[in-house]
Structure formats: structure tokens, C-alpha cells
């Protein structure tokens, strides 16, 4: 019983991390209909950029905050420019859906190997925010994990406010709901797509930093993160942010329980099985995104 409850809690923690990681993917797809097959490496770039700032310290301090700010600026610019100079020309061609997928795959592999060149193949991790743990009954939670959950919740709230209250955020929602509608009210959709890429890359980068503090990172781990992200957004409904959050939490818990009862090697086949079942029964996902 004790291990069961602890499994649930650790599932919730990894679930919130997965949610952060899937958000960037679903934001881009929901608004631009581009499926980012370079998603994993973007998260990794976020993690490595932040790591530069904390590589010599044992515990996170102000330098990590600085690292996060630099990561945000860098990834926003990367996303913005990438849309502008690579995605936008591809979007104007008839087979844009497959060409953007293949382009981002190619770019992902390119960047992965650039990371490998710069940082080497060895496993790295970002120091935790705060050491120690607290006990609530039988449940033991690290302070670090509490802070992660807190950050994820804050991020989700901020995103919601952004989409609801700001002019650009509203325009993004408008584009997501109807591109011709957005055009006829005078929204510059190319500009919105560029900002969308910038925003989603920032969110993805932050999720990468969080993943780097909880687990570890090496230049190849991005693919694993990305494929999990794919299952989550499909389960939640492509393009649906709320769906992605619920799906991430559910899958996080399922993963933890599967590890507890069946063993870690069953985790991945179970992810695949869930993915297949979702596609067969409810391809629009639990909250019905854009099929």
C-alpha cells in the first residue's frame, strides 16, 4: 500500500514534467498545424544552455536563474527565426505537412550532433533546486519535486493568462480556431506563427531544464522525451493544451504503476499500447483536439 501511494505520487510528479514537455508540441500544432519533429532537441538545447551556467555548482543558485533567462531569450529567437526563414517558405508549398516534418527531423539530428560535439557524450544533470525532503504520512517527497510541480503550475497559469488576456495570445487562439477567420479580421498569420514558434520553444526549453534537474541528459535523450511527448499529445487530442496536461498526468501515473507492478522494461510497450488503443478508439484524443 505504501509503495502504491508513493508510486502514485511519483507518477504525478513525472506527469507534471511530461505535461510541461508536451505543451510546446501541442501549442505549435494547435496554432500552426506543423508537427514539430525536432521537439526533443529543442528541449535539450534548453537544458544544455541552462547547464552551462550551473556546471560548476552543486546546488542551483542565482546562476541557474540567469541561465533560465538566457535560455528563454535564446530559444525565443531560435523559434522565431526558424519559422521565418525555414518553416514559412515550406508552408507555402503544397506538400508542406511532410516537408516540415522531414525538415525538423533533419534539423533535430543536426542539432543533436552539434550538442554532441560541444558537450560530449557523457551524461550530465542540472543540480536540484533544493535538497532534502518532507514526509506527509507514508509519502516522502523531495523539496526539489515540489518546486518542479510549483513551477509547472505557475507556467500553466501564465500561459492561460497569456492566451486569454493579451492581444497576441488572443490572436494565436483565433488563428488556431480559424485561419481564414483570423486573416479577415486583419491578423498577420505569418507573424503569429513566428511568435508561436518562439513561445513554444521557450516552453519546451524550460521543460527541458526541469527534465534535466529531475533526470539526466545526454545528447540523445531528446528523442525519448519527444516520442513520449507524441503519445501524450495524441492521447490528449492534437492541439489541445488542456488535453495534453490531463494526458501527461494520466500517463505519468500509469508509467509509475507499471514500473511498480510489472517492471521498468514494460513501460515503453505500455506507452505504445495506450497510443494504439487511443488511435483505434478515439483518434481525436480525450478532449478532442484537431484530428
Amino acid at each position: 500500500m505504501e509503495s502504491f501511494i508513493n508510486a502514485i505520487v511519483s507518477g504525478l510528479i513525472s506527469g507534471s514534467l511530461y505535461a510541461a514537455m508536451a505543451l510546446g508540441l501541442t501549442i505549435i500544432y494547435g496554432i500552426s498545424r506543423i508537427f514539430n519533429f525536432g521537439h526533443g532537441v529543442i528541449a535539450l538545447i534548453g537544458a544544455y544552455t541552462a547547464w552551462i551556467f550551473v556546471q560548476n555548482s552543486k546546488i542551483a543558485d542565482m546562476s541557474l536563474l540567469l541561465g533560465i533567462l538566457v535560455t528563454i531569450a535564446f530559444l525565443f529567437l531560435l523559434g522565431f527565426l526558424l519559422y521565418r526563414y525555414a518553416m514559412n517558405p515550406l508552408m507555402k508549398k503544397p506538400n508542406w505537412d511532410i516537408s516540415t516534418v522531414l525538415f525538423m527531423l533533419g534539423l533535430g539530428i543536426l542539432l543533436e550532433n552539434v550538442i554532441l560535439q560541444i558537450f560530449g557524450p557523457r551524461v550530465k544533470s542540472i543540480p536540484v533546486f533544493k535538497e532534502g525532503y518532507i514526509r506527509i504520512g507514508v509519502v516522502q517527497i523531495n523539496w526539489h519535486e515540489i518546486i518542479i510541480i510549483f513551477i509547472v503550475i505557475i507556467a500553466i497559469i501564465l500561459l492561460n493568462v497569456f492566451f486569454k488576456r493579451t492581444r497576441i495570445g488572443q490572436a494565436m487562439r483565433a488563428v488556431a480556431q480559424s485561419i481564414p477567420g483570423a486573416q479577415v479580421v486583419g491578423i498577420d498569420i505569418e507573424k503569429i506563427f513566428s511568435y508561436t514558434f518562439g513561445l513554444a520553444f521557450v516552453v519546451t526549453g524550460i521543460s527541458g531544464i526541469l527534465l534535466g534537474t529531475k533526470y539526466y541528459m545526454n545528447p540523445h535523450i531528446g528523442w525519448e522525451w519527444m516520442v513520449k511527448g507524441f503519445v501524450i499529445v495524441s492521447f490528449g487530442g492534437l492541439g489541445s493544451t488542456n488535453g495534453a496536461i490531463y494526458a501527461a498526468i494520466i500517463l505519468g501515473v500509469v508509467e509509475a504503476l507499471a514500473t511498480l507492478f510489472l517492471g521498468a522494461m514494460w513501460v515503453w510497450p505500455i506507452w505504445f499500447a495506450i497510443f494504439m488503443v487511443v488511435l483505434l478508439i478515439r483518434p481525436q484524443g480525450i478532449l478532442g483536439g484537431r484530428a
Partner: protein
Amino acid sequence: MLKVDAINGYYADLHVIKDLSLRIEKREVVALFGPNGHGKSTLLKLLCGLQHPRSGSVYFNSEEITAYPAHKIVELGIAYIPEERNLFGDMTVMENLNLGAYNKRAHGSISQNLEFVFEVFPRLLERKNQLTSTLSGGESRMVAVARGLMSEPSLLMVDEPSIGLSPSLRNSVFEALAKINREKGITLLIVEQEIRDALSMANRVYMIKKGQILFEKPAAEVDIDEIEKAYF
């Protein structure tokens, strides 16, 4: 106000608009008739920048706008209300209207325009916090027109405003359009199948067939039989 000079337009790979020219004067109400599939909707899309002509030119207040993207054309004061409406279904009526005023030109007059829109379509005031995906066909049409008005246009192009509406709703939409022209001085270009209704409020008529202008006449001189004949 609007001058179209020998434009050619395509729908996918079909040559839909062929060397078509027309002009619209300030404060006019111009009706555009023609059989389905003969290029009316494509023409409007070419004028509002959703599509672009492969040749020819379009001038708005003597500025050439042929290659302008849609958002720039909205900013100049041309609003287009598509037949498909293209509302933002997961947003409320109010959010849709606010987005109608997205362009810089409309910022200053949001509250005035809102007041006018609710005066013209009182029903929308009751529904202002409802998601547009839950509205009826007539209400959706009203939101589409109202959203277009929010962009502070000087030229409003409406594609089939009455399609799918009951006769009484149709009347109220046409009354609203007449009011928009009368009180706000907004120039109207209306594409319509309900010839009688559109004719009664139009100053001038263009008849389009196979992507070309068949004839152009003051509305008063138009004979309905003549138009109906042109449909076949």
C-alpha cells in the same frame, strides 16, 4: 474608391476570373450577381487578399493593393465577410467582436463600433457571453457581419449574407446592411442569390458569368427577368 483592372484569378488550377475589371464609388451599394461557380466568391477573395491575382491590378483609394496580404488590406479599411463565416467557435461573441477590431485602424473606435453593432443587432447583446459555436445560423451570420464592422471599414464586402436564413431573418440582415450604409456611410459590395432583396438596396449591379462581367447597370434600370435569364 475601388478599381479592379483586368485581373486573372485561379481556384486551385482552374482559371476562374478572366480579365475582369470593375470599379466601386464611395458610399455606393453594389450588388454582384451571377450563377454559382462562376467566380463571385473567388473575386471577393482576390480583392481582400486571401488569394492573389496572377495578373492585373487592384487599386483602393488609388493605392495599388494587388499583392498586399489580407491583414494589410484590412488595415486600409476593406472588410470581407466570407460566406463560410469563419467565426472563432471556441470564443464568445464578445471575444469575436474584439478580435474584429484587431487592426490598428480600429483601435480608437472600439466602444463606438460596439455600440453601433449592438444597436444594429440587438440579439448579439443578449448573446454576448455565449460561445459562437453554440449560436444559430442567423446569429452566426450576424456575428460575422458585426465582426467585420468592428474593423472600422470604409468598404464592406459581404458574400451571400442571406444564405440559409429564414425570410424574416433575411430581412433583418438586409435592413442592417442598409443601415450600415446609410448611417455609417460604408460602401457595400454584396454578392447575393436573393436578387430581389439585394436589388432593392443596391445602386448599381454587376452581372458576372464564367469569370467575366456580363453587364453593368444602375440598379434602377435592371429588369429581374434579364438577370434570371443570365443565370441560364
